[in-house]
């Protein structure tokens, strides 16, 4: 972390002399990342999945989602590469459309939980005292309650409130970030606790800087590498959680497709045994996306986090 500190502090003292000082860490990181072939492969798969899901449907002739009784449950063929489902819809198109929702939910709930977790963790670690006590006790409390039952209850509430299916995905995002912020806050708090005792923070205090400036200009930039790593690994977790919820019918509901609720067709014995093209493609999409995100996130950790990985 000390390299960044040096970079930020120097560039603030003499920005005209050394304009590259601020970016040197990031350049170094990028150069190191380019050498890590596994991480690059992960990044490539992530980009490919995003492109497939967001651009792919534009080239599909079956996006209207109309019901074609004549085309019910056809096995994969030349016209429908992954076959059709019980309503005669093209499975490949639906997998891509479902990917849009699943990836969006994963990303958005990551952004929300990282924002919530790092804000609360930073406040707790920086101000300590009462704020720390209140925030961390709530986090401890939420962490004692098993997350799956908690999500089930929230999902049941969702069904009761008759939330329109279009809006359900937003509430699923909220639910997932509500469950995952305590762990994040705890990690960020620990990091802030150690950072705030460093010499550069003492220097900032001696200079008479205001709290807000110290927090946002000096403390948070040092947290960015950690946050990037946490965030990238968190997306995979969120995609997995969403798929579990939707599989059990408590997340995003059909007709809005997600990878999780598409696998739900495996709950039907005939579909499960005789029509694997209905539920295996979405499952493999989840697997491929999450493994790629995790490998890329781990590569980022190697590059950005100087501490040895455990």
């Amino acid at each position, binding site marked *: 972390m000390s390299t960044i500190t040096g970079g930020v502090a120097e560039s603030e003292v003499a920005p005209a002399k050394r304009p590259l000082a601020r970016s040197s860490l990031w350049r170094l990181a990028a150069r190191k990342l380019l050498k890590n072939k596994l991480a690059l492969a992960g990044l490539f798969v992530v980009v490919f999945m995003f492109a497939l899901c967001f651009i792919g449907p534009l080239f599909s002739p079956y996006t209207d989602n109309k019901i074609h009784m004549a085309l019910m449950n056809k096995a994969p063929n030349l016209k429908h590469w992954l076959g059709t489902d019980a309503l005669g819809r093209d499975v490949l198109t639906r997998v891509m459309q479902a990917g849009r929702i699943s990836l969006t939910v994963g990303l958005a709930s990551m952004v929300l939980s990282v924002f919530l977790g790092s804000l609360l963790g930073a406040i707790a670690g920086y101000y300590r005292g009462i704020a720390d006590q209140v925030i961390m006790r709530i986090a*401890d409390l939420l962490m*004692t309650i098993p997350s799956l*039952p908690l999500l089930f209850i929230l999902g*049941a509430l969702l069904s009761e409130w008759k939330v329109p299916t279009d809006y359900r995905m937003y509430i699923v995002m909220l639910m997932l970030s509500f469950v995952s912020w305590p762990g994040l806050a705890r990690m960020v708090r620990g990091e802030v606790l150690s950072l705030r005792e460093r010499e550069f923070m003492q220097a900032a205090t001696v200079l008479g800087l205001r709290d807000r400036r110290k927090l946002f200009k000096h403390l948070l930039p040092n947290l960015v590498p950690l946050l990037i790593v946490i965030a990238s690994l968190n997306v995979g977790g969120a995609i997995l959680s969403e798929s*579990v919820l939707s599989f059990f019918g408590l997340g995003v509901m059909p007709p809005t497709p997600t990878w999780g609720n598409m*696998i739900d067709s495996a709950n039907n014995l005939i579909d499960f045994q005789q029509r694997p093209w209905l539920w295996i493609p979405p*499952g493999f999409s989840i697997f491929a996306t999450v*493994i790629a995100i995790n490998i890329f996130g781990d590569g980022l950790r190697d590059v950005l986090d100087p501490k040895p990985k455990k």
Partner: protein
Amino acid sequence: MGTFITKRLLYTILILLAASLLIFSLYAWTPGDFITGNIKLTPERKAELREIYGLNKPLLERYGIWMKHALHGDFGYSMAQQKPVFTLFNQYIWNSFLLAAVSTFFTWLIAVIIGVVAAYRQYSWFDTLVMVVIFAAMSLPSFFIGLFLIKILAVDWKWLPPGGMLTTGSNATGMAYAEEVVRHMALPVIVMTLLGIGSLTRYIRGNMIDVMKQDYIRTARAKGLKERQVLFTHALRNALLPAITLVGFELPALFGGSLIIEKIFNWPGIGQLYMQSFGLRDYPLLMGFTVLIAILTVIGTMLSDILYRVADPRVRLQ
């Protein structure tokens, strides 16, 4: 040490009390209840039943009554099964424990072996392969891999039974019974081991790499000890020391069952019982289960903290 444990115990009890209130309110807010959902009952009978179960009392009073019984070790009566929750738990929890204990054993065994070898041959092709497999294991959607293996191994190839604990209608006893259970256990154990192995192998590999750089390893080699002895007696022992804190975190998983795996494999464990009861809104059972997990989690965390302190006297927790 004494004061530390006392403080930790007090905090644990406080957190548990708060958790019980939160759990109670959450289930009180959950829409629907066991009586409303039953269409066979007349409105009069429903009101009568509410009176009997005390569901028409104010929330706080209901919490008080529930807590009073819970503190006496009584989690109430399951509405759907008409048995005490505690009896039901006792009936199902051991099936969950069997599954969890066997898969935990395999997870640790395999993770330690692979972790040590991968660390010893860091950056070799084996190490790279292990890292990729670890990531794959950590990225598996549990329900999907379960379904996938059932489809391949049980439905298509018919090697193993697809679910349950015993063949339907079986009345095997003795060795035949044990063999049947083992055959039914195989698939869920494989999946649970797969799911758990990734992070543990990573952890042990990381610890081993750190330990192998220590001076005492060089000393051990300089003394002329065999490489095997250096690796397993000197290095592994020290690498496993921090892992004892993980033992505490295993506690909820050991006794709390696995909701997803037990549901997919139709295993008669406590997680499956919870999933069935959730649809029926059998609140005494649901609350009992959630509180049980909360207790196990809190005790597990406390155990980890204490074990960590015992294992490494340099650590001074407040």
